[in-house]
């Protein structure tokens, strides 16, 4: 177990280094930040002075090395656009994204599992089939379109919910939360549905097919034969055994929710790290882009690691296999 963890951590660091290398080799194609940083009245000399001041005239390997040096000391540099330390900016923006991701993740998991179980048990019912058909929309419509549709329906036409932003936030020791105000909670509704809809339908479909699989197993039949109540059979025996693949997918999807919040955040002007990243691309704000990409890869690597470790906890067979194999 310990050897396994150490090996995985080592691999993870390698993955991170490669991600950084690829990111830095790509930055050259994103464009040149100096035009945005200097005004209309800049001269060629100004351009060159700024380029060398920022180290942009050096090969990307050198730039990457300097970034790593700084990052190792917790210093991600200063944003070209805002002229403030990137770590401060990320800390300011992270709560918005994490709260949004948490709410959408919670919605996706709870509603997804509930609907999945329902559609599996009432396989031939009208409601179950209707849910299955509607869920196709969630899988196939692009996020930004869903977002715009929701805004037009609930903000413009009905006027129930705000069309953009986070509403009023309350600061609790450096963490800005939207959970404690009415406008903050209202503002969460549309973006979290938009962001979580794809994951919700995915989890629902996954739970349904796994559940159908399990319900055909012999032990379910025996459980029924033992005269257990339908509820106990479905939830204690069947659902529990469908959860292993669901946890893998959900874990990885949790990463995607945070990473792909970019689109939802842009549509709803949600002031999180995704929106920050989009701004950074438009402005060629290399320090912000680099820090964001590294953070997202750290997160993905960490989630993968946790998911692997959860297997050990959930599935006893894996533990036996591992010890037997080594």
């Amino acid at each position, binding site marked *: 177990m310990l050897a396994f963890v150490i090996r995985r951590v080592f691999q993870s660091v390698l993955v991170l280094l490669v991600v950084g290398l690829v990111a830095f080799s790509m930055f050259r*194609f*994103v*464009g*040149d*930040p100096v*035009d*945005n*940083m*200097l*005004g*209309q*009245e*800049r*001269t*060629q*000399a100004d*351009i060159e002075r700024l380029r060398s*001041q920022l180290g942009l005239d050096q090969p990307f390997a050198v730039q990457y090395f300097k970034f790593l040096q700084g990052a190792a000391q917790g210093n991600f540099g*200063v944003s070209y*656009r*805002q*002229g*403030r330390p990137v770590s401060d*900016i990320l800390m*300011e*923006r992270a709560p918005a994204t994490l709260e949004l991701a948490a709410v959408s993740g919670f919605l996706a998991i709870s509603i997804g599992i509930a609907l999945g179980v329902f559609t599996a048990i009432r396989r031939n019912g009208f409601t179950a089939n209707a849910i299955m058909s509607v869920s196709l929309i969630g899988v196939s419509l692009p996020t930004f379109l869903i977002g*715009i549709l929701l*805004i*037009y329906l609930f*903000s*413009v036409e009905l*006027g129930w919910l*705000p*069309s*953009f*932003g986070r509403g*009023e936030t*309350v600061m609790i020791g450096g963490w800005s939360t939207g959970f*404690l*105000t*009415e*406008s903050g909670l209202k503002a969460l509704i549309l973006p979290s549905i938009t962001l979580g809809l794809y994951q919700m339908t995915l989890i629902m479909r996954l739970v349904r097919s796994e559940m159908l699989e399990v319900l055909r197993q012999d032990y379910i039949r025996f459980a029924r034969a033992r005269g257990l109540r339908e509820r106990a059979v479905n939830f204690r025996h069947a659902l529990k055994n469908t959860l292993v693949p669901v946890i893998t997918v959900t874990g990885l999807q949790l990463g995607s929710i945070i990473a792909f919040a970019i689109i939802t955040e*842009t*549509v*709803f*002007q949600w*002031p999180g790290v995704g*929106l*920050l990243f*989009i*701004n950074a691309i*438009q*402005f*060629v704000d290399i320090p912000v882009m680099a820090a964001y990409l590294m953070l997202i890869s750290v997160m993905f690597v960490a989630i993968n690691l946790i998911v692997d470790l959860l297997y050990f906890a959930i599935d006893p067979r894996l533990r036996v296999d591992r010890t037997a194999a080594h």
Partner: protein
Amino acid sequence: MLRPISLAAALMVSASALVAEEFRWAETTDPQTMDPHAVNSAAVLGFLNNVYEGLVRRGKDMTIEPALATAWEPIGAGEGWRFTLRQGVTFHDGSTFDAQDVLFSYQRASDEASDTRSWFAPVSEVKVVDDYTVDIMTTAPNPIFPDSIANWMMMDSGWAEANNAARPDKDNGNFATLNANGTGAFQLTTREPGLRTVLEPFGGWWDEAEHNITRAELTPIQNPATAVAALLSGDVDFINPVPIQDTARLAANDQVKVIQGIEARVIMLGFPHEAEALKYSGETTDANPFADARVRQAVAHAVNVPAVLQTIMRGNAEEVSQLVSPAMRGYSADLANRPAFDPEKARALLAEAGYPDGFSFGLKCPNDRYLNDESVCQAITGMLAQVGMRATLDAMPVQNYWPELRSDNYDMYLLGWSPGTFDAEHPVRFLASTPNEEKKLGSWNFGGFSNARVDELLPMIQSEIDDGKRQAMLDEVTKILQDEVAYVPLYVQPLVWGTQANIVLTQRPDNFFILRWVTVN
């Protein structure tokens, strides 16, 4: 958990009762700093015009009017300008405005670290005569100097020094990046970069307030569809810009108003005057047809500008014949006709220049810099093909575009130019002068257009005090640029703002949103 909710709810109830004239607005870009001397961009200067003030300011019709200076006059035969300062002006923190602050603001705004430095290139010295008189000496007579400093904003020397912000710091930021202390009609109360910026009226403002706003909040909204939805749902009172394709729909809605005008920005086509050969041509690899004025003339006749404006701009823009719009000072009114759309003539000119079958070339175009820029380029590509000039269009984001132009990777390009001084001299200096790094001339003249007479006239224009003589010289330059077809000016970019129906405001061609002219009914 419960208490904060009810507390917040209680606060909100009382707040909504109080702030009847709360004004919320959305722009595409957030001003990147609150420092008026760090960055020379329209987003920053436009916003800070509400907080800081200069010696002079622009009125609703763009003319220069007194602000922190009550009067100004040339010194001697044009050695400089004497400004008489307004008395009794205080900064938002209560300190008094005087000549020392002008000197300090000059030093700060012309510092190495400041982007606004080039405004002070003609200045040799700033002298404090007494507490309320300042002499600004120039190296040569400079008739338009007062016009060129409307965005030079005054900062309190004591405040800046006390907060370690005596010089702008763009790279690491300082106190003035997030805080402001001006003399303007509004003071900055909250600044959360990229989230919101809140302004409240300054009680001690020297001028009569025209507005009735009690609190104003700016939120950047990047996505145009979100901004339109926010306006329609009443979440914001004002958006800038309204996407061209949504103007008709918004105009038909009773709840909102669309306010249209023309911006100071002229959109034009540029050419590689100096290149030996085309870079992106299939067959014309050893010659540069665009070096021939007849070919450039052919381009001017081949582009159907009215059709472009009618279709792509939905009738919201005006065609233009020169590098500045009619709203600018020094516009040549007698040269207002642009070459007529005449494909026959274009073909004849091409044949005369030795290209009866036309030629192929590469057109470079930004796709996120000007309104509908890529669509305009596509239309132009089609129109040029009609006369035999077969363009391959390469459209790209602006941060990739400028480096391409700087490395001469184009056969023809699209450029927009908005003169910072609102004077016709500005584009001559940047676009038409022979590039000269040392004299800081022609820094945006990518194609290297060069005309000895234009180069000779520019310094004379810059130092001519007599308006009539100056205009005659500007007219001569405009005539040369038209005859030589240095650029093909196409149209003046439209300005489209959207507001709630109960808002009254003034739109200025520089696209600055001036809060003190807003009334909420």
